[in-house]
């Protein structure tokens, strides 16, 4: 499989990465080089094989339902580019 330029633009938007029109052709080339590299996987017989869900098959430990965290709004917003009254501030979202 390979990607066309429209697909490059579509996935760049899905990934929220701005791509200049000038960059589309060589990005397309690079992505297709990678897709060509992984192409041979299509020939592997995977019939009846379970996809791996965890590298080490151990039971998942669970937490007790107690409040152990939070109450640190200052630290939560400390690295934010824009903050007001402990809210994160972003360009207006229109619904």
């Amino acid at each position, binding site marked *: 499989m390979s990607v066309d330029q429209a697909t490059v633009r579509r996935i760049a*938007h*899905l990934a*929220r990465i701005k791509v200049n029109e000038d960059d589309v052709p060589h990005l397309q080339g690079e992505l297709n080089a990678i897709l060509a590299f992984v192409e041979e996987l299509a020939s592997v017989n995977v019939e009846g094989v379970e996809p791996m*869900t*965890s590298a080490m*098959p*151990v*039971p*998942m*430990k*669970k*937490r*007790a*339902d*107690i*409040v*152990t*965290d*939070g*109450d*640190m*709004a200052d*630290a*939560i*917003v400390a690295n934010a580019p*824009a903050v*007001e*009254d*402990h*809210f*994160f*501030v*972003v*360009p*207006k*979202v*229109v*619904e």
Partner: protein
Amino acid sequence: MNTHANPSKLIKGATGDWEVVIGMEIHAQVTSRSKLFSGASTTFGEEPNANVSLVDAAMPGMLPVINEECVAQAVRTGLGLEAKINLRSVFDRKNYFYPDLPQGYQISQYKSPIVGEGVVLVDVSPTEQIEVGIERLHLEQDAGKSLHDQSATDSFVDLNRSGVALMEIVSKPDMRSSDEARAYVSKLRTILRYIGSCDGNMEQGSLRADVNVSVRRPGGPLGTRCEIKNVNSIRFIGQAIEVEARRQIAILEDGGKIDQETRLFDPGRGETRSMRSKEEAHDYRYFPDPDLLPLEFDQGYVDRLAAELPELPDAKKARFIKDYGLPPYDAGVLVADKETADYFEAAVQHGDARRDAKLVANWITGDVAAFANSIGLSVAQTHIKPAQVAGIVDLISDGTISGKIAKDLLAIIVGEEKDGDPRAIVEARGMKQVTDAGAIAGAVDAIIAANPDKVAQAQAKPSMLGWFVGQVMKETGGKANPQAVNELLKAKLGI
């Protein structure tokens, strides 16, 4: 499933009848102290970003750790929905960008949910019960909140809700009217509250409904559906379905076609409107969350939770019918709220006596409920004790007071004597009804003597008897035993 359209549920259009088909996705906030994957509190209404951990804010290197209580709550709920509990389920990431979604993905369960198919029995009316199939129930994270009205140019993001556990309960498209849909949500909410897995508070957003609506010709193929997002009251669910069904019918009858889309119900305008019509199709790129192992438990765990489950509304209703001889309708009304059902049982069994359950039910669902309603409380929240209801019913049953006097008695308990013992009040205030035949006979004789014309009329038209009863009751200050008055009057008037 409803293969044959019920004529009474059809909507009349200009070109014939239409059947509305409804399915629902309910997001129910899991009752837990801390979040699904972090130790931050789930408390409602805190300062912005106060209930946020590093995990909830998706700080680099943070990892989710699942809350065992949320898992248990989902299993309990699955059991309450008579659903298949999946001993192995998987958490997936649903990827999309939104400012109130800090990770850039929501952890949810896509391919392998914790709970599979189930069923809910829904009383639509005193005489109609339907089954609504449950497709699945899965656990997922809630998102944060964006406030858009704080500034002209910016949105403000608060992550306090981010990561709170939700159960998404997906029904099959088994509902055929707004009444059925409303009854389904009510019943689901009752079940959740019995189990204690969700407080069902729709105003605070603990229970949110996405309603899928389509219309079709009766028995015809399914139409294209629209999803009405986040409807936040049972009343609005009904209204939203009505207007959306009519909107779709109007389009179809005009020769148009329905676009599958997400819509929003505007209760003010009484209409639904398209939400994201211009937005590109979503591609959520679901894949199993590599930070979380599969969620696995054994049947023994499920059995233990099942054993600890409280009696659920359907079982309680059946028991009320069987043990107390209640009509199904009364039993259904009582069990709709667990506290009311408990109140009823406490009243019936008060003082180790067994009293007339139907009479107790009548009082609770009648006068007591009316009073509770008038002050915005549930029956169990009022100051009226089950023992007081039991006392009133006992006084009626043993003939001490009439039903009418009983209403006065309740008014006294509501008003001046909140903690009063009904029997003591009746004694102290001389409210006992007169059963003494001599005293009643005196009043009867006096009325007959004073109204010869009416006597003649009554003998011709026995329904006049009621007038005489009323006069006697008036004469005795309402305290005469109506049964005795009736009998004596009949004898003396010869009717």
